[in-house]
């Protein structure tokens, strides 16, 4: 008797749950509010991701504790040398940046803005091989927002697509659903790099056969589209095939970020601060952002340009004050758009002569 009752109740539940899942699927597809629901629900999966990551952390902790003295010293020496090299580059960069700003003043172009960063750790990888996504240990509590650019030491990794309170999900540039506007660093030729769903490969679409692009060219983000800031490395051209049967050249690109290896990544916050003068008043920065009108922007640039050139602000400061972050979180779309609209014509001007 009991078993008959159970089987009929499980049949009832089966149909209820199937209908419920179907309505969830439809809602997920057609109602944008579902992304909010999803980000709340990630609270339940976040602990699981932490637990899965524990062996990894134990391993790296053990690796650190059990490392012998010689190895540590070697590491230390290597890192010191590296720091020296990097510092030399930064020294040169200060003067180059100042020079750049002066040249931009001559061109009457608006000033480029620097970004601030937040360090995050990778705690998970999407187990579904159809999707190239990673999970980071920072979420909306750290002011991470959807659409934010994610970098590693080599270049752009992807963008944030889903933010929970404690974790966030990043779509990598190699995912089949991802595209990023790029330009060739050598000559400023613009293109769009599509992910192909194959790890370690991007492809450029609609590049004419006559375009000046060659194997070994570095591609940087062009800043068009307003998602990714200008000037970060995206990849290196590995192959250019001119097939007479195809309307466009076939260009393959290898991402410069280590998409399958990086454990520490950087989240970029577009900052209202100009590249050189870290003490610029926020009002000025706002002017510069609002201005596709050149006058106030060039004013701001002139003000900043007259001050002594310093090291670029905050590229190495991982944790800026939280209220400042909140502040520039809100005007983000405007900042992104103005940034690109202001930056791109200038880039063209520099590139053409």
């Amino acid at each position, binding site marked *: 008797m009991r078993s008959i009752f*159970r*089987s009929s109740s*499980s*049949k009832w*539940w*089966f149909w209820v*749950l*199937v209908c*419920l*899942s*179907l*309505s*969830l*699927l439809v*809602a*997920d*597809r057609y109602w944008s509010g*579902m992304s909010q*629901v*999803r980000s709340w*629900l*990630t609270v*339940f*999966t976040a602990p*699981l*991701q932490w*637990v*899965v990551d524990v062996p990894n952390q134990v391993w790296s902790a053990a690796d650190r504790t059990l490392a012998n003295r010689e190895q540590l010293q070697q590491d230390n020496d290597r890192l010191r040398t590296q720091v020296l090299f990097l510092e030399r580059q930064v020294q040169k960069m200060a003067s180059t940046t100042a020079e750049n700003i002066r040249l931009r003043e001559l061109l009457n172009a608006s000033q480029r803005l620097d970004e601030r960063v937040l360090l995050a750790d990778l705690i*998970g*990888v*999407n*187990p*579904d*091989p*159809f*999707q190239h*996504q990673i999970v980071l240990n920072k979420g909306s509590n750290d002011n991470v927002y959807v659409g934010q650019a994610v970098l590693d030491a080599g270049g752009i990794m992807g963008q944030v697509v*889903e933010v929970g309170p404690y974790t966030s*999900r990043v779509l990598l540039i190699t995912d*089949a*659903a991802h595209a990023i506007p790029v330009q060739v660093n050598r000559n400023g030729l613009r293109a769009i790099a599509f992910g192909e769903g194959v*790890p370690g490969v991007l492809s450029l679409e609609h590049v004419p056969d006559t375009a000046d692009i060659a194997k070994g060219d570095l591609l940087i983000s062009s800043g068009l589209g307003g998602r990714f800031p200008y000037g970060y490395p995206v990849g290196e051209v590995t192959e250019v095939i001119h097939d007479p049967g195809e309307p466009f050249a076939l260009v393959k690109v290898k991402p410069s970020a280590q998409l*399958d290896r990086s454990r520490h990544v950087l989240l970029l916050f577009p900052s209202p601060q100009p590249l050189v003068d870290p003490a610029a008043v926020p009002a000025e920065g706002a002017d510069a952002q609002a201005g596709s009108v050149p006058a106030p922007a060039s004013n701001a640039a002139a003000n900043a340009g007259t001050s002594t050139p310093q090291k670029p602000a905050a590229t190495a400061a991982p944790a800026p004050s939280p209220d400042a972050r909140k502040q520039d979180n809100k005007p983000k779309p405007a900042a992104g758009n103005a940034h690109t609209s202001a930056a791109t014509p200038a880039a063209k001007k520099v590139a053409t002569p």
Partner: protein
Amino acid sequence: MRQGPKGGWLILLSLLLAFMLSAIPLPEMLQWGRPEWVAMALIYWVMALPERVGVKTAWICGLLLDLLQSSPLGANAIGLTVVAYLTTLLHQRLRNFPLIQQSFVVLMLIGILQMVRHWLQQWQGGAAESLIFMLPSLISALLWPWWFVVHRDLRRIFVS
């Protein structure tokens, strides 16, 4: 999930382990062959204790899996619900099958799960170019005898 009088922790532990195994990052080569651990755990528990683990548990597990894989919300839920329901219908026969035959049923059940999920994925705009996405069902079926024996022995010690 209705908590039974005894051994509910073992069911939870087994499901948790299954979730962990399905979230662990794998190298590129192995990623396509990752067994459907959660479905395997559910099939076992529905078969062994159908009055305690059923479609509702399966649905919740499916939702969690959807969140974990960021697949369309409900894709895994519907698949696992179907699998759990079929298993409740089959459980008495399934218990009497030899392990090899059980493996074939598992192959079929997980194959159904993957077909359902793939259809839904296609509806959302991503399609596979080959049938390699069915590989996990084969691997799950190959691993089933060991999975079953370990679970049965643990259940005999702790649950009943």
